[in-house]
């Protein structure tokens, strides 16, 4: 007899009993001890077929290959740039990964990226010891000029981006701001002063209310009220 003691979307704490019996499997954020499955995180329960997992609500960013992140240049070496990733680990960007330009010996690297510059880059490799390599040689990866940086809870990034980018597109369209959401919880926003504030407030609202149902509509109404514009929700069915 298997007994599932939680419902999808329940909030559970570490050590909380989720399932009694052998018919289910522990996914990420859960573990089995004999005939029982327990949570190993503070998070939200998801049940996918027979797999039960707990998605965390908090926690600092851990670099993963393939993530697009926003970093700050903290050091310039002979071989490239050291970047701060908003995690426990810094990243290296080598000369060949930084630009398609040929960088000659002895070139002034600060002409490309200087200390304190922010860049959007992609993680190309993470070793078991968390040495992180990033690259900017892909469309959309660039240096960020002007604008503002806002830090958000990394675990809420998927909600801020939305399905196929629908949420962030809605904010961009409503406010006219340029926005880049890094998977490391760093968001870059650039627009006119008032719209920047509306965009930031909207993002903070998503961060706060992401676990409440009907988020897309709440945000749509909020943006309409703030900007006085009518908003079409895109990609709703996607």
């Amino acid at each position, binding site marked *: 007899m298997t007994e599932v003691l939680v419902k999808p979307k329940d909030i559970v704490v570490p050590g909380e009993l989720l399932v009694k019996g052998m018919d289910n499997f522990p996914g990420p954020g859960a573990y089995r001890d004999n005939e029982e499955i327990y949570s190993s995180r503070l998070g939200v329960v998801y049940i996918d077929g027979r797999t039960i997992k707990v998605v965390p609500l908090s926690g600092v960013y851990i670099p993963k290959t393939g993530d697009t992140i926003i970093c700050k240049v903290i050091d310039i070496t002979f071989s490239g740039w050291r970047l701060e990733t908003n995690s426990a680990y810094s990243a290296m960007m080598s000369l060949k990964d930084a630009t398609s330009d040929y960088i000659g010996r002895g070139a002034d690297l600060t002409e490309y990226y200087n200390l304190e510059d922010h860049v959007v880059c992609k993680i190309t490799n993470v070793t078991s010891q968390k040495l992180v390599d990033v690259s900017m040689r892909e469309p959309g990866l660039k240096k*960020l000029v*002007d604008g503002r*940086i806002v830090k958000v809870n990394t675990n809420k990034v998927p909600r801020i981006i939305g399905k196929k980018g629908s949420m962030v597109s809605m904010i961009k369209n409503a406010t006219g701001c340029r926005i880049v959401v890094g998977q490391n919880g760093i968001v870059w926003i650039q627009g006119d*002063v*008032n719209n920047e*504030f509306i965009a930031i407030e909207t993002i903070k609202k998503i961060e706060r209310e992401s676990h409440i149902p009907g988020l897309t509509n709440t945000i749509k109404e909020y943006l309409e009220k703030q900007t006085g514009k009518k908003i079409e929700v895109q990609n709703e069915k996607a």
Partner: protein
Amino acid sequence: MNGKSHIIKLLDNGKRLDGRSALDIRQPLIVEYGVSKTAEGSAKVTCGETEVIVGVKMEMGTPYPDSPDKGTIMVGAELLPLSSPDYEPGPPSIKAVELARVVDRGLRESKAIDFKKLCIEKGEKVWIVIIDIVTINDAGGLFDISALAALAALKDAKFPDMVDGKLDYRNPGKKPVELSKEPIAVTVYKLGKYFIVDPLTEEDKAMDARLTITTTADGTICALQKGGDHPLTEEEVSKMIDIASEKSKEYRKAL
């Protein structure tokens, strides 16, 4: 980014990073009294996301030989590593020392406390009033918030009673600390051509200069502290004093 140029760009539009105007103090501004029962007096001040606790302990000591009929005060400040990722455990940093000294000077020089009233027995026994500032969450603006919390904690403080020849620290005493003045610190920050008060951490880092101005209710200036790498003109100092005396009313109202 989020650096000086952006802060100034926002100020050109009359705004701050959090949407406030240049001379707005963050809300809520809340003073809670008696938060620590083990202290003889205590207060917690919350201003926006900054939270500071001040506790007052009263100890009996011997007076300094040159002032046998006077007790004294001592102010300490700890920037707890609990309160910010920028702080580390260890001996007090210069930032903590400056904070404690600025608060100390405001209380001492305003003569808020009559040190003669801290004398128990001339040349033998006096009260030492120890005021400790600790940060719970540092989101900027520590000078003004700490000074306000220190004053509030003193207003809450009671001398422990003497029971069987010993100080009874376990039960609250009856005799309050008499405060003849209430010094309020307001730090005005200069950023480019703008003046702001109650800075966020980022604004604090981006400032050109700051001036902490401590005033009593009648407008008397009782302590000053200039900080920052840039100089100030006489005109600027005059303007900053006007701002401080205006804003001090808001802090005073929160007490």
